[in-house]
C-alpha cells in the first residue's frame, strides 16, 4: 500500500466522508442533461468563491471608515502591488456573478426545472439572487465615492417612502441621521459578514438539494410532470440513461468556469477596476450620481414613472415580483417542462428581458 493511500485512509477512517463524496461524484445524471446548458449554476458558484478570495485580499488593505475608505482605495489602485488588478477582478467578478445568476435563473425557468420536486431549490435560488444583488449594492457603497454617497441618498429616499415607519427605516439604514461614518461601517458589516454568511448557508442548501433530488431531466415536449409519478420516472430515466456526474458532466462545468475566470481577469486587465469616482464630500454638488450596471434599469425607470404611481410601485412592485417568483413553483408545479409547449412563459421572459434591456439602455 502506497504511503499516499495510507495517509488517505488515516483521514478517511476519522472523517468518514469518503463514501458521501464518492456518492456525490458518481451520482447519475440523465445523459442529455450533461449539457452545456447546465453550466451556469456551477460557474456562478466558482465566481462566488473567486469573490470570497479577492474580497478577503482587499479587506487586508481597505479601511472601512468614511474618512479613510476613499484614500485606501486610491492606495489599493496606485500604491499596493497589483492592488488595481485585485480590485478589477472583484469588481468585474461582481458583474459576472450577477449576470451568471440571472442567466442561470432564466435557464432554470425555461427548462421548467423549478417544478416538482425542485420547488424549494428554486425558492432558495430566488433568495440567492436577492442576496447577490444585495452584495452588488453594498459593494458599490464600500467604494465610498460620490456615486456611493448619493446612491445611499437614493436608497434612503426610497425607504423614506414607506408609510408610518419610514423615518425609523431611514435612520436604521444610515445608522444615524445622515450618510456618514456609521453608514459605511454598517454596510461593511453587511457586505463582509452578514450576506456572505447567508450566501454560504443557502448555497450549501441549494447544492445539497441538487445532489439529493438529481439534476433536472432534459425537457421533452409531452413528457408531463405529475407529482404522483415523477420520482419513479426520474429514477427509471437515470437508471436507463444515466451517466456518472464525474467525469461525464463535470468537465463541461470545469471548462466553462475556467473560461469565466479568464474572462473576469481579461476584463480586469483591459478595463481596470471601477472607480472610485470623486471624493465623498457632499458639498461638491457638481456631480451626476449613477448606479452600477445592474441597477441602471431601476435608475431609468425612476426618471420615467409619473409621480402619482411612483411610491406605490416602488413599495408594492418588489413585493409582487418576489412573491410571484417564490410562488411560481406552486402555481405551476406540474405539467409541461419544455419551452416549446410553454408560450406564455417564453413571452413573459422575453418581455421582461426586453424591458430591462431597454431601461438599461436608456440609463446609459
Amino acid at each position, binding site marked *: 500500500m502506497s504511503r499516499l493511500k495510507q495517509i488517505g485512509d488515516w483521514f478517511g477512517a476519522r472523517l468518514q466522508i469518503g463514501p458521501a463524496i464518492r456518492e456525490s461524484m458518481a451520482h447519475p445524471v440523465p445523459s442529455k442533461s450533461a449539457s452545456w446548458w447546465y453550466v451556469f449554476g456551477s460557474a456562478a458558484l466558482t465566481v462566488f468563491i473567486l469573490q470570497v478570495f479577492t474580497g478577503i485580499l482587499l479587506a487586508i488593505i481597505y479601511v472601512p471608515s468614511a474618512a479613510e475608505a476613499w484614500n485606501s482605495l486610491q492606495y489599493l489602485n496606485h500604491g499596493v502591488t497589483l492592488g488595481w488588478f485585485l480590485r478589477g477582478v472583484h469588481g468585474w467578478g461582481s458583474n459576472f456573478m450577477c449576470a451568471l445568476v440571472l442567466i442561470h435563473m432564466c435557464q432554470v425557468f425555461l427548462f421548467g426545472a423549478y417544478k416538482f420536486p425542485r420547488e424549494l431549490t428554486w425558492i432558495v435560488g430566488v433568495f440567492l439572487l436577492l442576496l447577490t444583488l444585495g452584495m452588488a449594492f453594498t459593494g458599490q457603497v464600500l467604494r465610498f465615492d460620490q456615486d456611493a454617497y448619493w446612491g445611499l*441618498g437614493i436608497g434612503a*429616499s426610497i425607504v423614506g417612502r*414607506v408609510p408610518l415607519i419610514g*423615518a425609523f427605516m431611514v435612520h436604521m439604514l444610515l445608522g444615524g441621521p445622515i450618510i456618514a*461614518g456609521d453608514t459605511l461601517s454598517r454596510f461593511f458589516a453587511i457586505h463582509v459578514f452578514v450576506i456572505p454568511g447567508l450566501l454560504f448557508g443557502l448555497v450549501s442548501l441549494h447544492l445539497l438539494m441538487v445532489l439529493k433530488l438529481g439534476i433536472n431531466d432534459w425537457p421533452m415536449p409531452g413528457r408531463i410532470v405529475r407529482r404522483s409519478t415523477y420520482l419513479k420516472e426520474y429514477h427509471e430515466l437515470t437508471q436507463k440513461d444515466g451517466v456518472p456526474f464525474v467525469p461525464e458532466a463535470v468537465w463541461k462545468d470545469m471548462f466553462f468556469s475556467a473560461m469565466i475566470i479568464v474572462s473576469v481577469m481579461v476584463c480586469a486587465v483591459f478595463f481596470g477596476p471601477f472607480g472610485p469616482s470623486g471624493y465623498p*464630500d*457632499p458639498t461638491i*454638488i457638481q456631480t451626476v450620481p449613477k448606479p452600477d450596471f445592474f441597477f441602471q434599469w431601476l435608475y431609468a425607470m425612476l426618471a420615467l414613472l409619473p409621480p402619482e404611481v411612483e411610491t406605490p410601485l416602488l413599495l408594492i412592485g418588489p413585493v409582487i415580483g418576489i412573491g410571484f417568483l417564490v410562488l411560481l413553483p406552486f402555481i405551476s408545479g406540474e405539467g409541461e417542462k419544455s419551452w416549446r409547449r410553454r408560450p406564455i412563459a417564453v413571452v413573459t421572459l422575453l418581455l421582461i428581458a426586453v424591458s430591462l434591456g431597454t431601461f438599461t439602455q436608456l440609463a446609459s
Partner: protein
Amino acid sequence: MSSQPMEAPEPNNKDGISRRDVFAKIGLLLNGLAVAVLATPVVGYVLSPILRGERGRYKSWVSLGELDEFPEGQTRLAKFQNPVSSSWDGDTDHIPCWVRRISGEQFQVFAINCAHLGCPVRWFAQSSLFMCPCHGGVYYQDGSRASGPPPRGLFEYAYKVENGKLMIEAGQLPTLSTTAKLETGSRGCQG
C-alpha cells in the same frame, strides 16, 4: 451497526414522564431565558440609530454665517457642519444647502436633496430654477415643484436670525418621511 444503545433502560413510569425528559425541558427553558436576557440589550444596541434620535435629538440650531454673506434677491450655496457627527465621518458631515434671501431678514433655506430621491439639486440663476441631475426634477426659486418626478417642493429648514447670523435647525437627511422635523410648516406640499 452492532453497537449497543448507551443509555440504561428507562424506569417504568405510569405517566410516561421520565426524569431525563423533565431535565431536558428545564434545560431548554434555561437556554430560552438566557437568550431572552441576552436579546434585550442586543435589540437596544441594534435600534440605537432610532433611540438616539428620539424626541428630535438629532436636530439643533447651526449657523450658516453672517447675514451679509447672502445678498438680497439672490440664492447662494451655504455649508454647515452637521450637529451630529464623529471624527471618522471624513467630509460626509459637511452638509450643503441653498439660501435664498428674499429681503431683509426674510429667507428661505432649502435642503440640497431633491424631494424625489435625494440627489443634489443645483441652482441655475439665469432661469431661476433648481434642477436635479439624477431624474430631471425641476423646482421654482421659491422651492415649489415645477416639473419632473418629485412628489412635492424642496425641503425647507426652519431659520432664525440671531446676533447678525443666519441660523437653521438641521441635523438629518431629509426624505419624504424624515421631513416633518425639518419643515417650517408654512409651505405645504406641491402637487
